[in-house]
């Protein structure tokens, strides 16, 4: 079984309208996902469980997760299932390890040099190296040992390969480097999206993704992979979900709708399908309303989205275990600003907005205005990945918000 990026005790993104029982269940979603993985490993009688980094979320002070994992893995050792794991960027310095006393059948590969674990009984050899520090910039795979003859060789690596837009670059390496090692299977971790197919034709190289989606940017099914080996060679890879809550974004085109109430009907019918596809799991749903619509002006009024949220939340609760994460307004006013030939105040909106977008000095002035809020709350907002609190994403986000502000004004000033 190949899994990675459990991020134990990592909090999920905020969900509103939860009852206490569900809130408690969702708080422990990461632990439940690992429990599910362990249960699946026992049910499928796997030879070994391979964890390719980031079992823990970070160097937090709380070590409860470490104690808990210690207890959970004893179930695997009782069943004679070995666990081979490496540390990734998140848990390289995790305090949780200080309190763990790994059992005999649990192997954590060290960070000083690449190591090898051999399971003679199953003809398996595992090679890997843990991160010694959070920021590992060397190509660790380059120094991995040669494969052992007569064994099914598995490489464990926490890496971003050649880089990713959503994840920081750690332990960079290339497919050709991995190919050159001559292993049968590369169990990769760090990228939270599962590889649909192998990155190479020579051997299997792929990510299993994380075991539980934590926010809307990690949508869809999350879980682990069972690697089926027949006659010493890879037969096939099977994905098994371990998540208890599934994040989904629902795009709703409201261009043809006449009333706000119609939105609820459309969302309800779409949500029903999502609920069925989730196979009994809870679904955290983000709704993105889009399209040029005459409802845009209403949607931008204070309290309208909140009321829609409440009303939809109640209706969706009847459909199934669906929780609304947010309603995002990506719609546009049905009518644009009247002819650019006219001398209208609205015509200046575009000019002013363009200046704010393109003129560095204007933009800085605007950021100074926004700093009124940011100086007090930047740290907290950055913790939830709020783009405006992040220097790298600030420019793009400001443009998006400017467009929303412009739409708000147009919708409210141009009579429908």
């Amino acid at each position, binding site marked *: 079984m190949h899994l990675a990026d459990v991020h134990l*005790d990592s*909090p*999920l*993104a*905020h969900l509103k309208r939860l009852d206490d029982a569900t*809130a*408690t269940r*969702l708080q*422990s979603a990461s*632990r439940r996902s690992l429990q599910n993985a362990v249960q699946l490993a026992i049910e499928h009688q796997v030879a070994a469980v391979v964890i390719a980094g980031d079992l823990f979320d970070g160097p*937090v002070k*709380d*070590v*409860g*997760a470490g*104690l*808990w994992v210690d*207890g959970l893995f004893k179930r695997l050792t009782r069943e004679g299932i070995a666990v081979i794991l490496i540390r990734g960027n998140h848990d390289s310095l995790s*305090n*949780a390890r200080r*309190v763990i*006393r790994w059992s005999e059948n649990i192997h954590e590969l060290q960070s000083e040099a690449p190591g090898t674990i051999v399971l003679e009984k199953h003809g398996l050899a595992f090679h890997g190296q843990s991160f010694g520090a959070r920021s590992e910039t060397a190509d660790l795979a380059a120094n991995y040992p040669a494969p052992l003859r007569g064994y099914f060789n598995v490489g464990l690596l926490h890496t971003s390969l050649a880089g990713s837009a959503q994840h920081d670059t750690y332990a960079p390496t290339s497919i050709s480097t991995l190919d050159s090692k001559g292993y049968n299977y590369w169990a990769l971790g760090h990228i939270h999206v599962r590889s649909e197919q192998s990155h190479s034709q020579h051997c299997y190289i792929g990510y299993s993704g994380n075991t539980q989606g934590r926010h809307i940017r990690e949508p869809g099914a999350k879980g682990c992979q069972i690697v089926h080996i027949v006659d010493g060679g890879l037969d096939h890879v099977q994905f098994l979900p371990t998540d208890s809550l599934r994040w989904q974004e629902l795009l709703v085109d409201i261009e043809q709708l006449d009333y706000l109430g119609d939105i609820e009907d459309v969302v309800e019918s779409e949500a029903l399908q999502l609920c069925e596809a989730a196979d009994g799991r809870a679904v955290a749903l983000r709704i993105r309303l889009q399209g040029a619509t005459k409802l845009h002006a209403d949607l931008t*009024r*204070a309290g309208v989205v909140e009321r829609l949220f409440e009303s939809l939340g109640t209706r969706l609760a009847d459909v199934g275990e669906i929780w609304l994460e*947010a309603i995002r307004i990506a719609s546009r006013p049905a*009518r644009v600003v*009247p*002819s*650019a*030939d*006219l*001398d*209208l*105040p*609205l*015509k*200046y*909106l575009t*000019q002013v*907005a363009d200046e*704010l977008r393109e003129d560095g000095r204007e933009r800085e002035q*605007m950021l100074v*205005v926004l700093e009124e*809020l940011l100086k*007090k*709350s930047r740290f*907290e*907002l950055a913790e*939830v990945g*709020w783009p*405006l609190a992040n220097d790298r994403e600030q420019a793009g986000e400001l443009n998006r*918000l*400017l467009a*929303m*502000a412009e739409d*708000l004004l147009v919708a*409210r*000033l*141009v*009579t429908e």
Partner: protein
Amino acid sequence: MKIERVTLENFGIYTRKVLTFDAAPLVLIYGPNESGKTTALNGLRQALFGFEMRTPYLTGRTMSAEVSGRLANDNLIEFSRRKSKQDEVIGTLAGRNASPEELLQALCNLDLASYKQLFGFSLDELREGEAALKSARLSEALAGGGLGGMHALQELRAELQLSLMELYKSRGSTSKINLKLADIQKSHESLRASQVLPTAVEELQQELSDMKLQSDRERELFADVLQARSAAERLRDALPKFRQRCALERQLSNIELPSGVDMSFVSQWSSHADQRQKLLDKLDEEQVQLQRDRAQLAQLGGSQEISASEGEIEHLGHQASEISASRHRLQELREQIDDARGICQRLLETLELADVNDDLRKFSVSPPKKAELQKRCREYVTNAEETIAVTARLEAAVDSLAAIESNVEPFQQLPENLLELASFVERLQKLERELLAKSETLQKFVDDRELHDLQTKLLNVVGQAVTLAVTWRLPSAMQVQQQQHAEEELRRELTTAKRHVAKLDKEYAIAQEQIETLDQRSADELISKATTNRVARDAIIDQWLDDLSQPLIAASISPEDQRDRLRELQRLATAADVLQSEVFAAAEALAQFNQRQQHIERLQKEILASQKQLDELSMREQSLQREWQLLWKDVPFEASTCEVMLAWLHDYARWIDLYQQGEQLRRDVHIARGLVRHERRQLQDHWPNNLRDDVSTEVLTGQIRQWESLRHDMQRDRERLVGAKVNVDKLQTRLGELQQQHERIASNYAQWLSAVPITLNWPLEQVSKLIDTLEHLRREDESQRRATQQVCELEQQLDAYDSRVRDLAKTMGQVVGTGSLEGHAERWLNELLAMRHQRTQRIQLNAAIEHRARTVMELTAQQVELDKKLATLCSTVNDDNPTAMGALVERVRRAESIRVQISELTASIEPHSANEPLGEFLARLQSADEVTLQLQIEELSREAHRLDESRKLADQSIGALTQRIEQLANNQAAQRNQQALQDQRGELAELAEQWVVQRLAQELLNRSIERFAADHEPALLMYTRDYLKKLTGGRYVSVEHDNAKLGSFVVRNARDEPYTPDQLSTGTREQLYLAIRMAYITHHSEHHEPLPVIMDDCFVNFDDTRTRHALEAIVDWDPAIQTILLSCHWRVVQSLAEFAPQTAVIHLEKDLHTTAGELVLCHSS
């Protein structure tokens, strides 16, 4: 565009309707209510800008409209629209087919909603605009004019501001974001408190490990000690049994038994003996009981006869307690009667009546009458008090009146028209003040250098010979700016092009220079040298080869020759190498030469192209100059550069403004002076004596004030006198009323009192007391009567009882005294009950005695039978002595018992041996000492207990530690807090995004409005002033910035008095709003295609004067703008007929196209 004709088909009520406008600047569509005016309005709008998606006017499957109009450039535009499943539009522009996009472009790319918003006027909009103006800033008002209304703009701004404040305040803690941040701070603290630290867990784990080791060790020791103690305990437990067993064995050996006597014999003997003994015991018991019953029967004696009066005794005995209670009650009633008599006596004393009066005792007052009497009583008291007070006040008022009459002076003579004079003086004073203020303003204006400076500045540009005029037709600032931009652009392009040409020239020169330095001849020489060198080398080699091929010659060649030849070859080779490198260099130079040649050719081409571009730019420059001159063709001077003229235009606008202000001020001063003169003449006509012209208004005011004061004093005295008289009259009247009331009450009371059976004259003030006393007396009499009646009844009852008891006593032959007889009756009843109880006991004892006698006889017979059986057994063992038989049987039993005990003891000792052989164990028991064993056991127990306690503690600690670690593993408090923190951050992010979007929107809106206002303010303000003046008939003349409040504005009237918008009347604000909208449309039409303006009965709230002014302003509006008025009011037609009789009118009801003048004429005829 001006509409010439609109044809509607299948539009609402119209199957086909043709509206002809003939491109007239003003058209009135007149129609009373229900004549289809609204349908025509919507038809007109939708014909121009497209049918509505879901229009209620679509009655059939299709509808269509045709429009023909004339554009500002005099081109004809014609198009038709058709609405069916899909809307269609086709048309022509200037006689050629035009695409829908071209048609739309000709209509300024407006859609229906935007057109209604910008070019439509309605009553609702006018109202909203007026209300919004109350608090509008200048920029907002101007922008609102361009948005078709300020209402939405203001509402949006206010909403944004409110929403922002609710979301976040940099100071204060009540906004949503601040509250959220406070929550987050708390969550941080909770998280920190709930986190499990690794050091704490490590300590726990170490402690657990130590405890486990300790527990294991103590468990082993405990097991050893228990084993030892168990062995000692077994010995100790077995030792008494063993000793007992030994003693029994010794006893058994001492017992002697005859042969043949076994346990079966013993058991048979014992059985019979036991039975006999039991029989004897039971027989004794029965005989004792029989004797006791007989003795008891004897004690009861003979039976007594029950009296024949048993029923009467029983009845009187039971009634005795009741009779006793009645006696007590009788006594109480007698006491009660005595009390009532005493109370009645006291009440009668209260009424001051010596004897009891039966009529009085029967007299009662009903509750309504009582209430009425009490009310009369209150009125009587109040009347008396008020009479005293009024009398005192009357006396004081009479004294005061006399004093005032003595003080009032005779009236003096005053001008009769004093009020009129005061009004004249006040008006005169006000007008003089206004004149003074206006003169000062004018003087300040004249003294102000700005106008002169501006004039000088303007003339410096256009020439001192020119006279500045306000009527010049000047280009707009935008046109100049466009010209300036075009010139700047051209200048930039020219500079760029010239720079490019210069650069090309320079490059060309460098290329020429480089190409000239290349020497072609040297290259030829090098080739020639290389050829020579090669020839010489080949010659030497050939010669040498030839020599070597001939052995004789070869042999004759000396080594020196060969060395020379080789050196020569070496020299040639070196030279060849040098030449070769030079040739390579030359070839490279040649290649470079060719490249430069190509470069020069390319440069030449580019230079030509650039020169051509320069020529084109020069032509454009000339064209621009011509356009520039055209712009200024209507002015009597020559324009300078764009920058200069732009500034000049700005100054010129300011100069016009100031100039007009000055003119206005002068006019105002002139008018004010005339008004003062007129007013003074009026005053002189009304003054009571001759009034000189030079008397100042201060003197006149003083005189008026003096007269006023005098008149005021006289008036006040007169009023006081009248007031005092009135007061005296009032008091006298009141006193009379009070006396009448007093008499009426007294008469009523006397009438009632005559009906009361008492002789004294009771005062009205105490009537309540009288009524209460009479009531009380009546109640006490009643109570006394009832008590007396009860006493009679009770005495009869007691007498009857006593006579029945005496009769019974006589019957029973007993004597009773004269006291209470209930005691006798109770005693007789108790005796009767005791007698009945004895009789029952006697019957029961007789039956029991008979039964016991029978039982004794049966038991005696059984005893005889058993004696016979025992005798038979004695004979069996040849012993006739039954006593000796008993001892033998006893010995046998004892021996058997000892044997059984020995066996049992052995069996009980065996388990103590555990796995040890019994023999060995018994041997050890033989040598064991009980005291020693006990000491050993106790010592081992103490040790075991100590170890057990210690181990238990260790186990408890292990359990607690394990539980604690498990709790830590499963405790998700930190995780919960982390999640809570994350949730709060998520909520914070949502709030922050809302705030940012709204803050950006606010900033965008403010900037856009300010930008719009900055670009268009001068023109819009100028037009607004013009239209306001026309719409108000000259009452208000200016709209300008309010210097006292940044961003706000004021409206000035003809007297230059400033009014903020909220100080204006509603009607004036509506006019102001209309002026702003008209200004925007005029301004817009100057730069773009003018579109028809449709006004839908928006002057309904205007009075006739305002309506007339509004219509005049519309008639005088820019003739390029076509205005279509819709109205159902005939006064609109009449007004137009008066001052614009040629205005085109479409009469909807009569389907008539005519003029206002003709329509009114036709109507009147």
